[in-house]
Every structure is written in C-alpha cells, then in structure tokens.
C-alpha cells in the first residue's frame, strides 16, 4: 500500500494535541480545580451553583447567630441586674414591715426603694447598638418613660411585636421579648409593685400585699430569663450544626470541582513525554531519498 509521503502535518497536529493536554493538566494543578469553566463538566458546574448558594446561606445564618448572640447577652445581663435589684427591694420591704422601725427609718428605706425604682427604669431601657432592647419593634425610643398619671409612675411606650430571625432552612427563632411581657405584664407589673411598696413605706400601712406583689414580680422576672437561656442554647446548637453543614458543603464542593492532583500530575508527565517523543521523531525522520544515491 502506498503511504502518505508527507507525514509532517500529522505530526504537527499530534504536537498540538499533546500541548493542549499539557496546558489542561497545568491549569488543573495551578487552580486546584477540575471545573474551571462550565464546559469542563456542565453537570458539575450546575451543581456547584447550588452548592455555592447553600454555602452562602449557611454563612448568613452563622452571621445572624453571631449578631443575636451579643444582643441576647446584653439583654440577659440586664435582666439579671433587674432580678438582683428586685431582691434588694424585697429585703428592704420585709425590713420595713418590721413594726419596730421609726418613721425616719421608713422614710430612708422609701428613699432607697425610689433609687431602686429608678435603677429598674434604666435597666428596662437597656439599649444595644443604639436600639432599645425591650421596646418590641419600636426600638428607636426608650421603652419606658416616667408618667405620674399612671399608678406605677412608669408608662410603656413600646409595642408587643416580636422579630424572628432565620437561623436555618425553615428554622426561625424569636429575636426579642417585648418589655410589656417582661416587666409590666398584667398582674406582674414590677413598677407597680415597687410603687405600692414605696407608698406602704411612706404611709406605714399595707405592707403585706405590697411585699407579696413584689415577690410575685420578682418570681415572674426571674422566670422570664429562661427565654434568653433557651434561645442562646438553641443558637449554640444551631451554630455547631451549621459548622458541620459548612464542612460538608465544602467537601461536596471538592468532590464536584476539585482537581485530582495525582491524576493531573501524571497527565502532565504523560503529555510532556508524548510531546518530547514526537519532537524527537520529527527530528529523526530521514531526509534521504533515492536521488541521494544517483551519482
């Protein structure tokens, strides 16, 4: 059979192919990615979009968790101070109910109770990053203001609204508890209980119901701390879970798009060997013809 007398174009095409293989292997090794453009693996490229979306959402949930954590810690420590203040007030109330005290002593206790009342007001107006934590969603202005027209002397200016924050797919938690539920819930109004105790102290009468209602307010506020504890526990658990999910997503991303370095390296060596061999072969093709022997 007669063969193609000019093999050079074939050899050039072969060289071109091996050089392309070298380039692809080098790209995979340098980027660490098998899928550098959609055409490298269209199905994996489409799946990677979903993977990046879920990774982004996981990062956002973690961010939300971090941001409510600071807020919750501030709120919890404010509540803890409220509980301590109420405890002190309760002690003072029981002391004042002791019949042996003079009017002067009771007046002094009433003054101290008034100081505690002011401290409670300030704690109920705790703010975090410029937002009043216990005002519902009316966070732009203090939640509680002094108002002598109401029995307790303190008026609630917030609302009853609760924000929820998404911390997982379909998983939302309440991000605040309005002051109306914490401090001035009907039947458990701590400002009213305090006002009543101060009045009892000043008039030297009605100690027992005043102390009883203050004790009730104390128990109630103490109980409310559970909300913050629970939510912080949930946030902690969810943080751990999201961390695992993030890891899994990044593993999945690796499976989908990461380069197999061993395979890329061996392809790089193979294609370079092939290039060198082809080049050597081109150099060694005999240029002699029959003409060279005709003398």
């Amino acid at each position, binding site marked *: 059979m007669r063969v193609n*007398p000019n093999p050079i174009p074939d050899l050039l095409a072969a060289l071109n192919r091996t050089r392309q293989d070298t380039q692809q292997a080098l790209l995979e090794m340098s980027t660490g990615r098998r899928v550098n453009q959609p055409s490298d693996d269209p199905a994996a490229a489409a799946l990677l979009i979903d993977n990046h979306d879920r990774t982004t959402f996981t990062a956002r949930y973690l961010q939300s968790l971090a941001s409510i954590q600071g807020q919750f810690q501030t709120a919890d420590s404010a509540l803890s101070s409220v509980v301590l203040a109420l405890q002190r007030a309760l002690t003072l109330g029981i002391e004042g109910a002791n019949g042996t005290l003079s009017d002067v002593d009771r007046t002094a206790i009433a003054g101290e109770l008034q100081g505690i009342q002011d401290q409670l007001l300030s704690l109920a107006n705790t703010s975090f990053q410029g937002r009043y934590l216990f005002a519902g969603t*009316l966070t732009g202005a203090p939640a509680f203001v002094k108002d002598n027209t109401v029995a307790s002397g303190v008026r609630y200016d917030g609302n009853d609204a609760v*924000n929820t924050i998404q911390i997982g797919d379909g998983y939302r938690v309440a991000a605040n508890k309005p002051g109306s539920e914490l401090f001035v819930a009907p039947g458990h109004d701590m400002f009213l209980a305090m006002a009543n105790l101060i009045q009892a102290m000043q008039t030297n009468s009605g100690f027992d119901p005043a102390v009883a209602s203050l004790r009730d307010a104390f128990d109630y506020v103490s109980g409310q701390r559970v909300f913050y504890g629970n939510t912080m526990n949930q946030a902690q658990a969810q943080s751990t879970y999201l961390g695992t999910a993030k890891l899994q997503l990044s593993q999945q991303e690796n499976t989908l798009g990461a380069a197999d370095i061993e395979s890329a390296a061996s392809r790089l060596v193979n294609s370079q060997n092939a290039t060198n061999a082809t080049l050597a072969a081109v150099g060694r093709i005999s240029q002699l013809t029959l003409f060279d022997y005709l003398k």
Partner: protein
Amino acid sequence: MGSGGMHQIFAGSTDITSSLPAGKLGGLLAMRDSGIPVLEGHLDQLAAGLATALNTAHRGGFDLNGNAGGDLFVPPPVGGVGAAGALSIAITDPSLLAASSDGTPGSNGNLAVLSAVHDQVVAGGQKPLDFYARIVFQVGSDTANTTAELDASQLILQQLEDQRSAISGVSLDEEAANMMRYQTAYQAAARVVTTVNDMLDAAVNLGRY
C-alpha cells in the same frame, strides 16, 4: 454596518450575510446572530423576573422612616429586553430599605419576604437559582459538544488528507525510480537508432567492394 451596530458581508453590492452557512465566518455569524442573543434573552428574563419579584416584596414593607417601600431595583424595561444590562439598585440611602413589615423601625418582618424570593418562581417557571444553573449548564454543554465535534471533524479531515496524499502525494523515491526508468528507455531507444543507422550504412556501401 447593518441594524443594531452589526456588520454585514457584501459581495459587490449584494448582502450575502445570510448565505454563509458554514466555515469560520459562518460559525462566527451563527454565534453572533443566534447563539449569543438566545443567552442574552435568558439573562434578561432572569434579571427582569428577579428585579420584579424583589420590587414587589420590597413595596410590601416599610422603610426606617415608616414610609411604604418603593422599588428596590430600577424597574426592568417592558418586555425585559436589555434588563440584565440595565439592572441597578434604585435606592442609594440605606434607610430607604423596606425591612419593616409594620412601619416600626425595629421590625425585620419584610426581610423574610424579600429572602423568600429565593424560593419563588421568577423566570421560565423556575426559581432564580435553578434558572441560572440551567443557563450555565446550557452554555457548558454547548461548548463541550462543540469542542468534541471540532476534535472529531479535525480527525476526519486529517484522515481524508492522509488518504488523498497516499494517492496523490509526491514521493521523491518514486520520482527518482521513474526518472531512472525513463532514462534507461531513452538510452535503449537511442541504441536502436544507432544500430539501424549502422545497418543502413553497411547496406549502402555493399557495392563498393
């Protein structure tokens, strides 16, 4: 230069742009006139759908000042043509972001509505991300197919050229052998002429002796 800033190809004064179905020029024209416009259309559809859905969600809320939310994105053109290129945020003041669902400054209720657009059907009966993933898959698959077809066509071309060269290529060995053959034949023919000449010579001089 034709409509839309596109170049057309002329032979003399005749527009032959549409009569170029193959070759490098044909491929470039097909990509320019049908491939890329289809993809642009998909991107426009996605951008318009997303902007409209987010605008609707945004208008349902209230900004930091308690006013009803406006458009979050500049509304896409009617019909959606050019929506992807023109996509831009309509508000510059962060306090105009309608995060509140009831007008109170601390509410974040409308953010849930905005983020729910992620799972809404916005373009071609699909959620935004699914639609986008489809575009990427389409581009990747088209490119991969074209590359494979190109490789195959190049191999076929190479084989055909090999076959043609095997029949019609010039082999110097063959040419040298042919030259030797023709040279020998020429020498033989010349020898015949010499012999005939000698014979004639002898015949003409027969009577002289």
